[in-house]
């Protein structure tokens, strides 16, 4: 593992950001009215967020659409100036955008790309090598390593516009991490990718974190990303941090119960199962229901005794359900 300075953490205190936005009524007349006289309104996107990250920590950053996740990441990376509060990343104040700071961080945005569209990814890598002044031996070593972990061989010399979305994202990641940053801000790095591609992006991030001890903040709307990579979860809602802790505790706090899955030998009606728990779903010989956390063992015992059960498993509810619970059934956990 490459040694990194001990100040590689993220420190955020009472971070705030407000925007002035212009509003317009729908339709042409609305546009005309807005053109002549703009209606503006102050919007607080981030309202007093505080947290600290230890070096090497990986956290998942969750929240519904427009909760302030991306705005926070942009303030942490120095793109946006905070309206208030204190931010330190790797010992630097991001808004000053010093060279030394920018060399230590990266921001990957799943929906934006930095690669030169008409040229092979390798050309973009060379530009980044020159911008970050990466010495040739380090460049070769990093490229070798990334090519292996991400499976880049064979796609580096194709024009970026001819790559598939997944291939392009792999190259984007490689371009963004070529300078071996110690703090990674990943905003929806797997958006739109198929399951295999998501898995290889995850494996790459995990590998990078372990190899270089990098600190990672990750937002995603694929829960699998977050559960696979992060132990600690931050949940932001309407610009405020509503949860900071580990995944298990988030599930607990959302209340709810555990999910019991049954594989039956004989069909059972949903009505018959309603006596054992809530949210009963029956599909042929499989069934699913939710039972209160405290009564998992007693209910499971009754199910096994009363019914002809082939198999029974107890699981934490999918995190989507937990988020839906936390945010009152709104469209949860989208970036």
């Amino acid at each position: 593992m490459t040694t990194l300075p001990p100040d590689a953490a993220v420190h955020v205190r009472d971070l705030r950001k407000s925007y002035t936005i212009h509003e317009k009524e729908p339709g042409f007349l609305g546009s005309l009215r807005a053109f002549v006289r703009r209606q503006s309104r102050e919007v607080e996107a981030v309202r007093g967020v505080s947290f600290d990250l230890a070096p090497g920590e990986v956290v998942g950053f969750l929240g519904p659409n427009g909760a302030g996740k991306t705005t926070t990441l942009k303030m942490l990376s120095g793109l946006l100036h905070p309206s208030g509060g204190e931010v330190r990343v790797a010992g630097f104040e991001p808004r000053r955008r010093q060279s030394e700071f920018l060399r230590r961080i990266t921001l990957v945005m799943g929906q934006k790309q930095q690669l030169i569209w008409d040229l092979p990814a390798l050309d973009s890598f060379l530009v980044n090598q020159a911008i970050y002044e990466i010495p040739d031996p380090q460049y070769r070593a990093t490229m070798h390593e990334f090519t292996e972990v991400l499976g880049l061989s064979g796609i580096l010399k194709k024009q970026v516009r001819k790559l598939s979305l997944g291939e392009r994202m792999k190259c984007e990641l490689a371009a963004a991490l070529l300078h071996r940053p110690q703090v990674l801000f990943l905003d929806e790095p797997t958006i739109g990718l198929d399951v295999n591609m998501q898995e290889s992006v995850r494996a790459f991030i995990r590998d990078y974190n372990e190899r270089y001890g990098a600190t990672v903040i990750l937002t995603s709307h694929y829960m699998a990303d977050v559960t696979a990579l992060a132990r600690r979860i931050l949940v932001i809602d309407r610009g405020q941090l509503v949860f900071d802790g580990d995944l298990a505790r988030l599930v607990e706090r959302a209340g709810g119960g555990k999910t019991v899955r049954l594989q039956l030998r004989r069909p059972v009606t949903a009505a018959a199962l309603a006596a054992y728990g809530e949210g009963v779903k029956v599909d042929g010989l499989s069934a699913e229901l939710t039972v209160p956390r405290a009564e998992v063992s007693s209910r499971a015992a009754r199910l096994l005794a009363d019914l002809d059960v082939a198999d029974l498993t107890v699981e934490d509810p999918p995190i989507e359900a937990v988020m839906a619970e936390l945010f009152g059934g709104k469209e949860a956990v989208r970036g």
Partner: protein
Amino acid sequence: MTRYLRLLRLFTGATLSAQLEYRANFLGAVLASLGEVGVALLGIGVLFGQPGTDTVGGWTFHQALLVTGFFMLTEGVISVFIQPNMSKIAEAVRTGSMDFTLLKPLDAQFGVSTRHLNVLRAGDLLIGLGLIAYAASHLTVTLGGFAGAAVLYLSAVVIVYCIWLALSTTAFWFVKTQNASELFNGVFGAARFPVTAFPVPIRALLTFVVPVALITTVPAQALTGTLTPALALASPLVAAAAFVLTRLFWLKAVASYTSASS
């Protein structure tokens, strides 16, 4: 410094290879260059084509042709070096790809000003230089006049760059700024003629408000040795002041960047 030179080389290489991807574009660019020079020559032809017209605003045909040469050269500098970069600033702000420029440990103004070249319009540069060389061969040009013209033209390029950058930087607030560069093109069209060919009020406007005079007329005057010391000094000073001011304006714009959401 060597890092920035190395980057210039890389950016140039990348933008050249990207353009080679689209070969059909080349023909269009050649036609555009020819159209440009045709219009410029037609203008001067109409002026001097009147029977009995030997001078316009005190300029002989070859002196005026010199101005047209500087005009074409500047058109070339704009189409090859300036416009391809500046037109992408507004686009980068609108799509949010400005993020990547600002995240790099590299001066962002350098980054947005040097990333692209439109090599296809390099013909304009050659046509401009050719016109200047042809016109100068019919005039007496001293070595001092040549050196002065070189320095003053360099100042002119800095001024043109600053005007474009200042106009494009407004994209950080207004997002779409295409009309601002149209405004520049409209006024700059006046630079194809010597400023002294215009009535006094317009001449003043073109010297002091929009320094079009400094861009083509002043270098041409330097080359023919008819330049007043005041204008010779004014051009580099205006260039330096413009550079400092646009730099400050750029920094202010970057600080108020709102980054289109992903």
